[in-house]
């Protein structure tokens, strides 16, 4: 029985492939694969059906299947192409076997269904696993990348460090900000820390609360904190919310914050231009003589 069914399928693989291709091509016009060129679609279909047949022939999963799915993942083909294809294959093959058989009773029918499932399901599982595995991998990589970006600390000058914050602040990130801020202040021996919130889209009570706590903690270890990059609309929402940010200085831009940080550490920005100008004038006057 086992071998007989397999023989039917392998022996008539050409017919089955033809039926399958027809069915799959019918799907193409309407959906996701519309942007893929005809030749590529054709050749991928051929390869797909060959892969399925090899796995039936060898009654098990093959390396071909892995290679095939890996390549489709890299090309960015939708998973639904593969699952649809397998569903069509299941339908076609069941129909074909039943047509080939002389006597059909319920036992035989059940046996055929079970056999076909035994061929098709492992392939589907394998494909879905490959795809979801690749997605999970991407998500975890992005999470790591995001974490690396989440709370950077830049020592711009002796005693002055800047922490630019960009994007949404959630609980996990708020924790990271606090840790990095305190570590960095000690490590770089910073007297003044500028927290730049230009890139934070929304400042609600939770974000404000975390910033206040971070500033307070910085104060406790003997440094000062300046909150910079408060956009006008953010200033209005902070006032509306009734959040008191009066405990530490705030500035509208990083530039202003940096200037007052310099003042706090007894330094100023001086133009070197004037000296150069003097020398140029001197040379000019020498030339004229």
């Amino acid at each position, binding site marked *: 029985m086992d071998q007989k069914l397999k023989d039917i399928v392998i022996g008539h693989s050409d017919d089955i492939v033809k039926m399958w291709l027809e069915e799959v091509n019918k799907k193409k016009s309407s959906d996701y694969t519309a942007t893929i060129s005809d030749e590529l679609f054709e050749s991928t279909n051929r390869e797909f059906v060959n892969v399925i047949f090899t796995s039936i022939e060898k009654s098990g999963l093959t390396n071909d299947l892995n290679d095939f799915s890996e390549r489709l993942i890299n090309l960015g083909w939708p998973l639904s192409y593969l699952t649809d294809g397998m569903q069509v294959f299941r339908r076609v093959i069941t129909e074909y076997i039943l047509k080939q058989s002389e006597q059909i009773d319920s036992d035989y029918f059940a046996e055929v269904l079970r056999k076909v499932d035994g061929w098709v399901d492992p392939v589907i599982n394998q494909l879905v696993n490959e795809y979801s595995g690749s997605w999970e991998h991407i998500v975890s990589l992005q999470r790591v990348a995001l974490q690396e970006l989440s709370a950077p600390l830049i020592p711009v000058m002796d005693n002055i460090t800047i922490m630019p914050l960009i994007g*949404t602040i*959630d*609980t996990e990130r708020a924790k990271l900000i606090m840790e990095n801020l305190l570590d960095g202040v000690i490590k770089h021996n910073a007297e003044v820390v500028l927290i730049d919130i230009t890139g934070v*889209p*929304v*400042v*609600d*009570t*939770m974000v*404000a*609360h975390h910033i*206040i706590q971070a500033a307070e903690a910085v104060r406790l270890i003997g440094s000062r904190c300046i909150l910079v990059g408060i956009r*006008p*609309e*953010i200033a*209005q*929402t902070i006032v*509306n*919310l*009734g*959040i008191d940010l009066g405990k530490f200085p705030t500035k509208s831009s990083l530039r202003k914050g940096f200037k007052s940080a310099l003042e706090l550490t007894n330094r100023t920005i001086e133009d070197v231009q004037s000296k150069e100008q003097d020398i140029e004038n001197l040379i000019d006057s020498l030339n004229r003589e």
Partner: protein
Amino acid sequence: MDFQSCVNIKKEWDIVGARQLGRDIARKIGFGTVDQARIATAISELARNIYLYAGTGKICFEAIEDMNHKGLRIVAMDDGPGIKELSQVMEDGFSTSGGLGAGLPGVKRLMDDFDIQSEDGKGTEIKAVKWLR
């Protein structure tokens, strides 16, 4: 524009989703950047309350229109434990979780109309409207 769209709040990141959808709708209605920021902040507060105190719930947005002006209605619903101290939570500085306690009174000030209904053990429903000026 008479549509209603909802965001389910289950994870902390759903707050961001709700905020973005709300901001998009506000922009389509024609709110300026300041009002967009107010609306986004209000949504953030409401969504965070759901996430922190009720666990799950949803936030719905509705573009509304009366005789002479347009507006945006935000409805926050949950089946959480409800709020026992309803008058206290509307006071500034009251918090059961160690926060700033500015959330709900803040939302009331950020929006134009504000209505809260809550029953102990039966959940909370907050409706807030911002009118386009």
